[in-house]
């Protein structure tokens, strides 16, 4: 369960304070598929980043499974991400000096999994990349890179998956393939999925949609 209360985030730009998120209150129950939509600059990615503990909010709190992120230092936040959170980004963010398989291995190794290589291999196979183990990111297509990123996000079966416009850099065919993959893994593993997207058709597949505008939740809908 994720509980977000009175969350505010502002950044200073050219000496002025710019509000990015304004009094966000949100609860996400376990196993829910939540879609966050809204125009560019509405604060979607910032909200996702704060949920992942990648930055500190200006005020308010985020509580994940009873743990307030504000109580954790940077290393404790890293440990929380390692144990509970997987992330997929629009621009893939693979480590260029490591092979595809090694990229998937990293979170497993950080968790201390003994046979990280074999487990990463299973994940790579699950995303249809059984022939790309030793390829480096630069040798893969965009769609393949994003599949590696999905496999990496699911490594260690995190309870929470955060996907930030995962199809933004892909053509429609590859984009659909990635979403199908994310949803299949979400259903198979039963984790919470929060997806940031511009694509309303995609959002319509979620359990719930919240719309952000100028840093505020402007609407909340149940597409079903």
């Amino acid at each position, binding site marked *: 369960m994720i509980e977000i209360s009175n969350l505010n985030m502002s950044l200073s730009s050219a000496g002025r304070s710019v509000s990015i998120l304004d009094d966000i209150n949100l609860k996400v129950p376990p196993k829910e598929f939540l879609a966050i939509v809204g125009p560019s600059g509405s604060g979607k990615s910032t909200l996702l980043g704060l949920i992942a503990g990648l930055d500190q909010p200006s005020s308010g709190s985020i509580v994940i499974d009873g743990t307030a992120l504000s109580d954790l230092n940077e290393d404790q936040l890293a440990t929380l991400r*390692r144990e509970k959170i997987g992330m997929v980004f629009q621009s893939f*963010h693979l480590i260029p*000096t490591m092979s595809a398989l090694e990229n998937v291995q990293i979170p497993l190794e950080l968790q201390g999994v003994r046979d990280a290589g074999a487990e990463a291999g299973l994940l790579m196979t699950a995303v249809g990349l059984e022939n790309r183990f030793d390829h480096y990111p630069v040798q893969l297509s965009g769609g393949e890179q994003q599949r590696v990123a999905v496999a990496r996000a699911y490594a260690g079966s995190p309870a929470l998956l955060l996907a930030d416009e995962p199809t933004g850099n892909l053509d429609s065919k590859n984009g659909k393939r990635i979403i199908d993959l994310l949803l299949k893994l979400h259903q198979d593993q039963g984790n919470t999925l929060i997806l940031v997207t511009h694509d309303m058709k995609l959002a319509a597949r979620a359990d719930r949609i919240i719309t952000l505008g100028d840093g505020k939740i402007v609407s909340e809908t149940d597409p079903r």
Partner: protein
Amino acid sequence: MSQKLTHAKNSPFVSRMIWREIRGAFRHFVFFLSSITIGVGAIVGVGNIAANFEAMTAHEAKNLLAADLEVRLTRPLSDAGEAVLSDLAQKGIEVVRVAEMVAMASNPETTQTQLVELKAVEQGYPFYGNLLIEPPIASPFKNENVVFVEEGLLLRLKLEVGDKLGLGDLDFTVAGLVKKEPDKVAGPFSLGPRVLISQDVLTQTALVKVGSRIRRRLLLKTTALWPPEKLKTHLIEIWKDESVQVKTYREVRPRLRRFLENFTTYLGVVGLITLLIGGMGVGGNVHAFLTERMQSIAILKSLGASSVSILKIYLGLTLLLGSVGGVIGVALGVGIYQILGHLLSDFLPPGFHFELFLAPIFQGLSMGLLTALLFSIWPLRVVGEVSPAGVFRQAVEGIQERSNKGGLAGRLCLITVLVLAWLGLTVWQAGSWKLGSSVAAGLAGAILLLLLSGRIMLFCIKRMKTPRNLSLRYGISNLYRPGQQVQAVLLSLGIAVMVLLTLKQVEKNLMVQLENNIPEAAPGLFLIDIQSDQQEKLMAILEKWNLKQPTTLTPLIRSRLHAIEGDKISEMSLEGRRDRWYFTREYVLTYQEDLPLHNVLARGLWWGAEPDERTEMLSVEAEAAKNLGLDLGSEVSFDIQGVPISGKISSVRDVDWGSMTTNFYFIFPPEALAGAPETFVATVTADEADDGAIQNAVIDAFPNITIIPIREIIETIGRILQEVARTVEFMAMLAMTVGLVVVSGAIAATRGRRVHELVLFKILGATRPTLMAMMAVEYAILGLLAALVGGGLSVLSAWVIVHYFLKIPWQFAWEILFLGGLATVCLTVLTGFFVSYRTLGEKPLVALRTE
């Protein structure tokens, strides 16, 4: 707009762009500036020290000799030779006789003694230069019972001007202090303080006996009719039967000056290496900067800027930075030269005032600028080869991978020009073609070996089984990171490590040699000039002390080579021969029944029991035999004060000259030299506390005997060695510092990629300790590789120096390699952390947002 940019040779565009680049990316240039600054500092510092030494020793060459011409006598002139002197006087040529020897001086009140360097001169000395005596005396060397001494002697013997000083068997009045002496270059090599006396006084003392070691010289002041070179030719001709060496003031290079010249040249070479490493840093920095600027260059090109105008921007930037780095380097160089001056203070006369010379400053500035230019040209060449479309397609790749234009011939041509230009710089700094080209060749060899061994190691690491440990795997994979300057780091840090560890190993070998030569019961005193009739009484005196080893007297007979296989040395053509010294030097002969310690028979047999055969026998040292062309059976004849004596080589010995014992080139059987005029030397091994009392008792009984305190000499040699070593180490540390600056620059160049990766690791759940371990592994591997290649090459270079130049036994100093390697790894890790610790604190979301 496009029109404007195309015609940008009207410079406002170029200069404005240079200003924009500096304003926008100053932090990039910190490493560029540091690399050049330290290199220029090293060159300016050493150059100024060299110039000061040069000024000290060379400005007044005549003053150094105190005459126009010097004649060294290796034995007294014959009557005919003396007659020439009268002839010279008639030609208006003035002559002063000088005799120098080591002697014992004493305080007659306390009987305390001190080894001194005695110099006897005649009225008229010196012809040139300033002999400063305090209080001033009009004619100091008239026949009066007075001496002039260096202040240090009075302090040691607790005397004052006006007190009595014992020399030989007479006491003299100390009439003044020698404050400045023209033909003595102050240095650490002297055996004791100076005592100046007149020639007439010297003959009164009992110091000059048969066989005494006296260095006799004639100083001549020439006339317009007889200039120095003409007189030299004349004297060599008419004194061809005498044993003389004639030099004009232009040819005189005192040992200290020679040493300082060699030493400062050596320091200059280390300075040059520092600049070379800095140059590599500049090259890496420019490469990294241009990689980052590829997008901007591509945009400028697509807007219509020509390759020439873009090249002008970055060339102008390089020259500007080279100049700024050079100017800061001059300031640093002034500091470095003050430190070097302090480190080498023992080599300078007291009260010596340093001057700042403009020539080394100009040289340092020019070399800095040229180095910056030379090392920038290679990376800058790609500016013209950039294809905007290619850059836009592959924005993240490095320059090297992209630049396939230009052609092999063009590149080889550029490389040749750069190598020749660097050779020119090396020759300029080294001061001679021969040394410059040897240094350049040595450096080129070292660079090739470093590159080759670096590549082999990287290849092996790549082929190794991937380690399971994440930090280790990440650290290793980073060696192959795009844009990573592993080769540049290995080369620059490797050279620095090589220089530093070579010096440390050579120093260690020298120190080991020095210590090994001091036996467990090292003799404390070395007694020379003992006369035959003094033997018994001397032994009786020595018996009063509890000696650790019995004292033995070794006979010495002074001689010269007369003939080899019947060919007279005086009739041989030896001028210009490298081995001339072996033929013309004075030989100190001895006779001994048994083969001496530290001598090993290489060929032949030691004397047998047959008396008839023995008188014919003669043993020679191997190196002398080689230089004189002697072998078993060769007949050698010596001239002992006019009496010829000959023998046939019956054995050849290998001698350990480093052993602290008396060693000889030629040894006869005892009966062969019976009746020859001889003196004796002896070593005394007693408790250190008794040395002073023994010294005083011997001098009291025999004023002519000179006692050399061996312990003090060894301490002095050790001190000089350490002083020299400290200075060279200081210079090598500068090279190491630049090496680390290059490491910092290389790490900083990949900062953007590092931040990106660290943030990803954080997102995936890596804690700071994990990230730090990853960084540590990467930097440690870099340091370890540099230590391995640099350390490996240092063993080779140190071995070459020790084996071929110093000719002492090689000792592998593994502890230096281990500690040096460890220090390199630690310093690289620390430097890496220093440059990149801020990346650890980056907030992931902020970093991702700014991408």
